[in-house]
């Protein structure tokens, strides 16, 4: 049962090995102390602890893309509901989408962040098997996106900033999701979030899985926790299409260049939020504290921006995204006669 035992990632083996050794030494230390002998082993323990910290730093400072995916999916990794406890002072959940049902894959409600009142939106994956099943592993249905949209409208109406946590493998691919208009509701969400007149801060806290992530992901700031990814397609999906087998996911992960560092380099994400040494799953509190200072700093910055400017800047933020080459070849044809003389110059 993976939900009860600790998940161990293959590349973390040296860390667990050293932790085991440290544990043994600490047991020995306790025994020795009982008979009055402490000096020598105490020094060894201190040294090993330093080595362990260095080892975690070393391994985690150079994770490859596939290892990053594994960490972002780690079963002990803090999820939206963990952060709701650790980051916010109060959370008043609001469930209704007024149409179909309560999608547990998206949590919404009112919250206090220090002295600030906010509207919170976030994917929830679930911790144990029952919860995961109820949450569809963080894959939202149209009702989840509709719920989020309703709460965001409320936020705009009463001047509350919006915080959105992204952690999903993707929007749910199922029959009922299609029947209830998965494509349509994601499209509406993108359009409405782009226009909404209140600050929005989004953070990828785990997996940023394509349209399902973007569906609650349009905002004024995008942060990514250090060991997360944000991608147009899952590495498995990409591998099965382009490399004809999902076992090539590590190859696809590398090719897709989707880690927080890649996205910072591409100018897609605004900031990388550091994780505790050895990943957020090793220290929920420290991860939460880093997350909290990111949120506070950005919300305070955005609070002073007039709403018209805020929406205009958000427009520009997305407007400039794209990688293409604009040759002058067509510009040379500018003297081509224009239709009935009314056409504006477009280029």
């Amino acid at each position: 049962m993976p939900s009860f035992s600790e998940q161990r990632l293959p590349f973390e083996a040296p860390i667990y090995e050293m932790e085991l050794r440290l544990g043994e030494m600490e047991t020995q230390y306790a025994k020795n102390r009982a008979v009055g002998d402490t000096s020598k082993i105490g020094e060894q323990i201190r040294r090993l602890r330093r080595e362990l910290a260095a080892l975690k730093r070393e391994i985690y400072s150079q994770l490859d893309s596939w290892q990053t995916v594994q960490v972002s999916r780690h079963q002990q990794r803090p999820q939206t509901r963990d952060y709701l406890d650790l980051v916010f002072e109060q959370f008043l959940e609001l469930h209704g989408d007024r149409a179909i049902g309560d999608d547990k894959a998206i949590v919404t409600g009112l919250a206090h962040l220090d002295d600030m009142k906010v509207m919170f939106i976030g994917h929830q994956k679930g911790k144990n098997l029952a919860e995961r099943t109820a949450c569809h592993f963080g894959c939202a249905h149209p009702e989840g996106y509709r719920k989020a949209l309703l709460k965001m409208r409320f936020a705009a109406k009463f001047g509350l900033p919006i915080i959105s946590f992204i952690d999903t493998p993707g929007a749910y691919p199922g029959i009922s999701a299609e029947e209830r208009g998965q494509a349509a509701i994601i499209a509406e969400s993108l359009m409405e979030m782009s226009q909404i007149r209140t600050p929005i801060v989004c953070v990828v806290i785990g997996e940023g899985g394509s349209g399902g992530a973007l569906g609650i992901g349009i905002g004024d700031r995008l942060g990514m926790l250090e060991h997360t990814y944000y991608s147009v397609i899952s590495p498995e999906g990409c591998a099965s299409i382009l490399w004809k087998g999902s076992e090539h996911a590590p190859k696809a992960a590398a090719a897709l260049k989707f880690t927080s560092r890649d996205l910072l380099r591409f100018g897609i994400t605004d900031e990388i939020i550091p994780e505790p040494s050895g990943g957020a799953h090793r220290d929920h509190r420290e991860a939460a504290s880093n997350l909290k200072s990111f949120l506070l700093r950005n919300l305070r910055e955005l609070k002073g921006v007039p709403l018209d400017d805020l929406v205009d800047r958000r427009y520009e933020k997305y407007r400039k995204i794209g990688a293409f080459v604009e040759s002058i070849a067509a510009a040379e044809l500018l003297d081509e006669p224009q239709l009935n003389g009314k056409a504006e110059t477009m280029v």
Partner: protein
Amino acid sequence: MAKIGGDSLNSWHGHSELKRVPEGVWMRCDGCSATLFRKQVDQNDKVCPECNHHFPVTAVERINQLLDQDTYEDWFSNLQPADPLQFDDRRPYPERVKAEQERTGLNEAALVGQGFIKGIRIVFGITDSNFIMGSMGSVVGEKLTRAVEAATRQKLPLVIVSGSGGGARMHEGIFSLMQMAKISTALGRYRREGGLFISVLTHPTMGGVAASFASLGDIIVAEPKALVGFAGPRVIEQTVRVQLPQGFQTSEFLLEHGFIDRIVHRRDLRSMIAQLIDYAMP
């Protein structure tokens, strides 16, 4: 500004046709299995005269069918895809793009420009699912966004015909995903300014294209029996492990569930669009 029309349009059309469709006097209908006289199908807007099956048409053919003759003016054809990820899946992305350009006669999966439809001036966009599945690379996103912005500035009606097998241009990674955001943001401003957007869904309209501009029309119409949806049928089958219902994710399914306004036969599309625009005009 590049103008594609008249002879250049026809020769381009002829060129791509030659490369794409295996020549033959006869063809078999995918809809009713009837053996059809190819020329007759071509003259019938590529619709089966027996069962009304709509065969795929290229972006250029579509322009010829929908817009007033020789009125289409192509914009931004000078935009070319870059390779921000230096993507290489057994074949470098730039090579793949080049091969697609040669195969299709298009420089990317979208064409945008302006034209007239029954004398009404419109901004027009189209994605061609023949070019890397009609997926949304940066060029597609940029062209459509510029088209939306032009329609906003010039207060013109906007018509976009979508066809896309998936939406995700994997080779452009996150840049591809963010084109959904970019176009939707531009359409948000267009809607706020009171613009009229008619979205025409053709077979297939899936994934990120369906989950962005294609679903954001003030009016949404679809050709009969087009495949339209978010997740691909195979992905859904693998996830839920049940057989998908008959007609799942077709235009008729979407109409039934309230996500489109009308199903329109290809022969009526031009007059339907003109009529819809007329209703929205002062």
